[in-house]
C-alpha cells in the first residue's frame, strides 16, 4: 500500500466548493481522506505549506500530434508538458495522421499513453471519417474503444445535417460532440482577426462573424435535438452572448475558452504580447498566429466576464505545438497554434492578480468545469475533484511565485508561444498523478 500525504496547503476543491487549510491523503493512487492535521505515520509527506492544493487540471483540448506528426509533439512530450502545466488529464484531439477515426488508432493512443505518458490521456474521436465532413465515423465503436467525445477540431463540421446526426449517434454512447465553430466562407483564408490591426499590417483578416455564425447555427441544431453540444475555443463578445442566451433557454450548450483568448489581443500580432511597440519594427509575430485568432480588447473582456459568470464552462489550452520552421516563415505561411500547456496557469493567473477572477473560480474552470462540460466523470469517476475515491490527481500551486517563460526549456517540442521572455506570476510547483509525483519544481531545482 503506497501512501502520500500532502500536508498543510490551502485546499481548494471546486468539486465540493471547499477552500480551507487541509491535508490530503492519497492511498494507492486514490484520494483516501481530506481533513485537517491527518496522521503522517507511515506515509510519504509533501509539505504544501503556503501553497494552494487543488485537483489536477483537466485539459479538454490538447493536440498531442501523435500518431503521424511526432516531429511536432509525441504523447510522451505532450503529457510531460501537461504535467509541468499542472494538468493530470488531457483530452487529445483527433487531427492526427491518421486521424483518430478508428478503434485501432484509439488503441494506439491509449497504449502509447499507458507506456510513455506522464498523465492521463483521454482521446477524442473524429465526428467524420478522416475529418472530411462527409460520412460519420464509427462513433459507437470509438466510444467503446475509449473515446470520451467527438470532434473534427481543426475543421468545423460544415454540414449542419452531419452535425445533427453526429450528436444523435453520439447520444447512443452518452457522449458529447465538440464543434470548432468557423464558417469557412466568412473566414475566407484570413490569417488574423479582422480589425484595425489586420488593416495596419496588411494581413487578410477573418471576421468575428465567421465564428458567431457557426455558433448560432450549432445552437439551433442542438436546440432541435435537445442533446448536449460543446463549443471549442470561443473567442468573441457575440459568441459569449450567444452561449449565454442558449444557457438561459436551458439548452445543454457548453463552451471553453483558451488562456490566450482570455489575456491577449490582436495587438500582439503587431506589437508583441504586452501590446507595446518593440523598437520601430512591426513584429508579424507568427507565434501569435492562432485559430480562432487573437481578438479585440472588447472580445477579451467579454470572454473573461463569460468565464467568471460560468457562461463559459472551462478553460482549455488548445495546446497546438509546431516545429520551429513552421513558425519561422512568412506570417501567411505560418502554422496556426500556440503551445499552451506549460503557460496556461501562469497566464490565467494574470486575471486573478488583476482582480478580474477569483482563484477558486479559476481553479473550477480548470478542473470540475471541463469535466462537467464533457461529462468526463462517466469515464473517470471523481475526475476533477478530490472526493474520497477520486483519482489521486493533485496540483500544488504558488499563486505569488514569479517565473520567466523560457520556451527552450519547455518539455513540449512546441516552443511556439508569444510569451517568450515574459514574467508570469503564478506557478505550478508540483503535479501528482494517480498518487505519484510526476513533476515538481523542487526536483527540477535539485537536479539543476
Amino acid at each position: 500500500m503506497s501512501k502520500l500525504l500532502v500536508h498543510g496547503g490551502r485546499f481548494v476543491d471546486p468539486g465540493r466548493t471547499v477552500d480551507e487549510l487541509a491535508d490530503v491523503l492519497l492511498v494507492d493512487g486514490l484520494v483516501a481522506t481530506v481533513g485537517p492535521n491527518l496522521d503522517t505515520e507511515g506515509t510519504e509527506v509533501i509539505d504544501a505549506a503556503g501553497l494552494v492544493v487543488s485537483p489536477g487540471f483537466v485539459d479538454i483540448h490538447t493536440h498531442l500530434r501523435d500518431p503521424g506528426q511526432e516531429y511536432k509533439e509525441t504523447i510522451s512530450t505532450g503529457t510531460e508538458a501537461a504535467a509541468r502545466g499542472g494538468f493530470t488529464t488531457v483530452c487529445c484531439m483527433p487531427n492526427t495522421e491518421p486521424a483518430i477515426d478508428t478503434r485501432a488508432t484509439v488503441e494506439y493512443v491509449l497504449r502509447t499513453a499507458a507506456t510513455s505518458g506522464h498523465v492521463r490521456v483521454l482521446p477524442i474521436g473524429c465526428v467524420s471519417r478522416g475529418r472530411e465532413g462527409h460520412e460519420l465515423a464509427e462513433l459507437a465503436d470509438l466510444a467503446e474503444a475509449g473515446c470520451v467525445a467527438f470532434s473534427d477540431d481543426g475543421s468545423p463540421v460544415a454540414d449542419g445535417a452531419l452535425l445533427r446526426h453526429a450528436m444523435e449517434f453520439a447520444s447512443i454512447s452518452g457522449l458529447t460532440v465538440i464543434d470548432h465553430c468557423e464558417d469557412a466562407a466568412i473566414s475566407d483564408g484570413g490569417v488574423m482577426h479582422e480589425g484595425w490591426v489586420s488593416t495596419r499590417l496588411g494581413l487578410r483578416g477573418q471576421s468575428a462573424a465567421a465564428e458567431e455564425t457557426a455558433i448560432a447555427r450549432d445552437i439551433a441544431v442542438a436546440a432541435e435535438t435537445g442533446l448536449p453540444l460543446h463549443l471549442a475555443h470561443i473567442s468573441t463578445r457575440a459568441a459569449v452572448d450567444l452561449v449565454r442566451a442558449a444557457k438561459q433557454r436551458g439548452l445543454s450548450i457548453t463552451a471553453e475558452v483558451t488562456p490566450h483568448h482570455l489575456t491577449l489581443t490582436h495587438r500582439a500580432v503587431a506589437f508583441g504580447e504586452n501590446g507595446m511597440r518593440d523598437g520601430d519594427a512591426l513584429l508579424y509575430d507568427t507565434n501569435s498566429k492562432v485559430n480562432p485568432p487573437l481578438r479585440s480588447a472588447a472580445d477579451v473582456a467579454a470572454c473573461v466576464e463569460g468565464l467568471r459568470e460560468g457562461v463559459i464552462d472551462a478553460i482549455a489550452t488548445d495546446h497546438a505545438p509546431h516545429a520551429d520552421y513552421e513558425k519561422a516563415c512568412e506570417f501567411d505561411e505560418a502554422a496556426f497554434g500556440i503551445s499552451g500547456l506549460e503557460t496556461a496557469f501562469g497566464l490565467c493567473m494574470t486575471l486573478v492578480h488583476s482582480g478580474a477572477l477569483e482563484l477558486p473560480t479559476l481553479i473550477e474552470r480548470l478542473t470540475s468545469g471541463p469535466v462537467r462540460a464533457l461529462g468526463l466523470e462517466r469515464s473517470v469517476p471523481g475526475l476533477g475533484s478530490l472526493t474520497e475515491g477520486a483519482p489521486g490527481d493533485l496540483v500544488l500551486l504558488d499563486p505569488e511565485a514569479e517565473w520567466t517563460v523560457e520556451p527552450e526549456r519547455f518539455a513540449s517540442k512546441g516552443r511556439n508561444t508569444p510569451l517568450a521572455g515574459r514574467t508570469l506570476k503564478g506557478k505550478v510547483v508540483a503535479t501528482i498523478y494517480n498518487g505519484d509525483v510526476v513533476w515538481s519544481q523542487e526536483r527540477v531545482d535539485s537536479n539543476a
Partner: protein
Amino acid sequence: MVKNAPSPRKARVAPPSQKRPAQLTEQRAKTERRSNAAGVGAERLSPDTTWQRRHLLDLDDFSAAEIAVVLDTTDAMKEVLSRDVPRVPALRGKTIVTLFYEASTRTRASFELAGKVLGADVINVSAAGSSVQKGEALLDTIRTIQAIGADVCILRHHSAGAPYLAARESTFRVINAGDGGHAHPTQALLDAYTLRSQLGDLRGRKIVIVGDIAHSRVARSNMWSLTALGAEVVLCGPPTLLPAGLNGAAPDAEERDLPPVRVEHDLDIAIEDADAVMALRLQHERQSGGLLPSLREYARLYQVNSERMAKAKPGALVLHPGPINEGVEISTEVAHGSRSVVEEQVANGVAVRMAVLYLLLRGEQP
C-alpha cells in the same frame, strides 16, 4: 498594361519639373549646386545627414522632417541623373541584391538603375528561376544572400511582413519593395516627391486615394507619409474594398495605431476641392472574388474621369502607381491628360530609390 510609360533610362534625362513654384525651385537648385560642388563627392550628395535608419520597411514611423531628408536627397539625385554621364561612385563596392517574389517592371528596373548610377553592383534574383522555385524557404534564401555578402536586399514579396522577417534574421539592410497588402514605402516616397515638386508644401492639401484600398500597399504607405506631411487624406472606394478599422464608428474603444484619414464612399463628394487624386490599380480578380458586381459598375462609381476631375481644384494632379487599367479605375483622357503626373512618378522613382540607397549605405566602408 501601361501605355506610354517611359523606360527608367529615358526618365533620368527628363528635365526637372517646371510646375514647381519658381522661388522654391531656384532656392533648392542653389542648394543642390552648392552641395554638389565637388561633382562626385559622395558625402556632398545629401545636404542633410540626419538619417540613421538601418532598414526601410515602411513609412509608418517617419516624421515630416525625415521624409524631407529623403526628398531633399532626391533633388540631389535628380541632378546626378541630369548629367551627361550619370554615374557617381557613391556606393562603389556595395552589393545590392534585388529579391523579387512577384512580377515587377518599374520598381525593379528603377532600383537596379538607381544602384548602378551610384556605382554599386546589382544582382537580381527572381523567385521564378531560382531555388525558390524548388521550394526553398524564405529564410534559407535570405541566408544565402547574406552569405554572398550583400549589403542591402531589396525585397518584394507576396506576404505582408516578409521584409520584417528578413530584417530581423539577417545582417544586411533591407528595403521593402512591396510586401503583400502592407507597404510600399519607396512608391509612397516617390509619390510624396512628385506631389511636393508640383504643389510645394503639402500641409493642408487635400489628397484623395481612390480604389481598392483594402488590398493596396501603395495606399497603406501613402496614408502614413501624406498625413505625416500634413496633408488631408481622404480614402474613397466601395465598402467591399476598404479595410476594417479605418472608419470612425468603431464597435470598441481600442486605441488604434492608424493614420488620421477620412473615409468617403461617394467619389463625387470625396473629390470636391481635391489638390490631387491618386487612382489605384483594380485587380480583375476582385470581381470573381465577389467584392464587385462588375468592372462596369466599378468604373461607373469610382473611375477617375474628366467629369469628376472637374469637381476637384483647378489644376488638381492625377497620380497612379501603375500598372494602369485604362477605362477601369481611370479614363484614358485623364491618365494621359495635362494633369497627369504618372510619367513623372516613374521618372522620380529612380531618383527616390537612389536617395534611399544612398542614405542607407553611405556611412559604411566598402
